[in-house]
């Protein structure tokens, strides 16, 4: 890099456009280094005489991913059979679980945040719930809710609700007495206080919690499908391994990684939009 920039320096023109594009190019190159290294290690691993049997090559994995997940025709929205049978049911359960956790977490968190007495009352219960290792509850959820989608959805919701709940309580309590006095002196309506002061004020914290919950929900999604499941990406991970179908196994891992990346991009976009004020306000106080 430095050789490149130095070589270009004598020809620097008055316009800084080439400099800008060089900076951007430099960032692209930098952010590509680690993925390329990972690919290289992966590829070398697949060549290894001992481990290579269990590691499908990157190329085989990509080919298999396209076949399984994108092989369909227009009537199937160009999605492959595996996408329909396993990916979409998984995503559906994770989505329902996540939104359930978000709604319940924000509602309960707000209630606990505004009423310290209620918060104190429920604190032991909340801490008990949080400290239970959710994966260990899988069997209990199957017993309680049968074997369909519900135990899985509820397990995901139960597993991811805690960061949302705690951050909402924290955010609502952090509104401060100053703003509470404003609400009182200006006789603001209760619903305005709730929807225009409490929730927006707590939004940065709630967002941070939701972000953690979103990545947790992918983990919980896989865990919930490892047992007693007839479809889903978690089921597929178990089934492909059992059948020594390593390209299939690796293609599931690749899809999971892609989902994680896409979700992160989406949430960063939303956050930038919804919380623009927060970035502005905090940067002013620095």
């Amino acid at each position: 890099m430095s050789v490149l920039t130095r070589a270009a320096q004598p020809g620097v023109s008055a316009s800084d456009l080439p400099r800008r594009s060089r900076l951007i190019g430099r960032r692209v190159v930098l952010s590509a280094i680690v993925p390329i290294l990972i690919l290289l290690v992966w590829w070398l691993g697949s060549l290894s005489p001992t481990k290579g049997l269990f590691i499908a090559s990157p190329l085989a994995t990509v080919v298999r991913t396209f076949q399984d997940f994108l092989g369909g025709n227009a009537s199937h929205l160009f999605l492959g059979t595996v996408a329909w049978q396993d990916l979409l049911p998984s995503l559906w359960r994770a989505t329902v679980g996540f939104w359930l956790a978000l709604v319940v977490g924000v509602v309960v968190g707000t209630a606990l945040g505004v009423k310290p007495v209620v918060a104190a009352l429920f604190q032991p219960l909340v801490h008990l719930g949080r400290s239970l290792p959710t994966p260990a509850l899988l069997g209990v959820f199957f017993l309680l809710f049968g074997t369909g989608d519900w135990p899985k959805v509820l397990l995901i919701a139960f597993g991811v609700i805690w960061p949302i709940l705690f951050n909402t309580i924290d955010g609502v309590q952090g509104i401060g007495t100053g703003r509470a006095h404003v609400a009182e002196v200006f006789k603001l309506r209760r619903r305005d206080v709730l929807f225009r002061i409490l929730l927006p004020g707590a939004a940065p914290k709630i967002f941070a919690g939701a972000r953690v919950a979103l990545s947790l929900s992918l983990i919980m999604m896989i865990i919930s499908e490892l047992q007693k499941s007839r479809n889903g990406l978690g089921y597929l991970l178990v089934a492909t391994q059992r059948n020594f179908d390593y390209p299939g196994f690796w293609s599931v891992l690749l899809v999971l990684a892609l989902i994680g990346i896409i979700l992160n991009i989406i949430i960063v976009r939303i956050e930038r939009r919804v919380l623009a004020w927060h970035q502005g306000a905090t940067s002013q106080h620095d």
Partner: protein
Amino acid sequence: MTDNQIPAELVMTGIAKVYGTNRAIDDISATVPAGQVTVIVGPSGAGKTTLLRIICGLDAPTSGQVHFDGAPIDGVPDGLAMVFQDYSRSLFPWLRVEANVGFPLRRIDKKLRRSRVMEALEAVGLAGKEHLYPWEMSGGMQQRVAIARALACHPRLLVMDEPYASVDAQTRAELEDLLLTIQATMKITVLVVTHDIDESVYLADNIIVLSKAPSRVSEEIPVRLARPRDQITTKEDAEFIRLRAHVLRLLRNIPEAPTGAGSLAAKVTA
């Protein structure tokens, strides 16, 4: 603003406030006359904020009563608006200026609300800034937004707790003059708390001087300086100088200089 907005009168009788074993306010009786500027000045920790919270109905006194236009207060009186000391904590950073100022008016019709917001922003010299966020503005401008929010309610009593304590001296002078202009045009009752002696004399028709906690009224001082006031000429007026020395003595508990020499001595020290 609307001309049927009759300024309110406030009467405090025997107010005391005890926090546990800490007697913050011992006994305060005073009147805030309608249509005038009254300034409460007192040392830090004298219970000024506590007193304002009682006046605003946010807090109940341990004993004593506050009457707002003859009626004992119970909760925040109608027609009272407040400007808080810390604008960064009283404005909402997720709302633009227009929404911040119009927030207390959410019960009224949208068009009327907008016109009242614009009128209030005009009055504080922020016309055209309604689409900014508070954090895009300087401290002085943010405090103007807070004043506009109070004015948009068309208050009959405007209460301000150390409103200019966190802005620089230049902005402070501008905001003092802004307050006096608004008060003169709208004829509302204004009650300001401050620990700044010059500010108290400059703004006031009446000064209520508080002692250290547990606080009592040291003295109620009428200020007869001519209006409109001016940062330069008013502050070099002999009466201004005499008054600020007098308030300072009260706050420091120094006995008054012998009669006749009083104003001269004050002039020399100032």
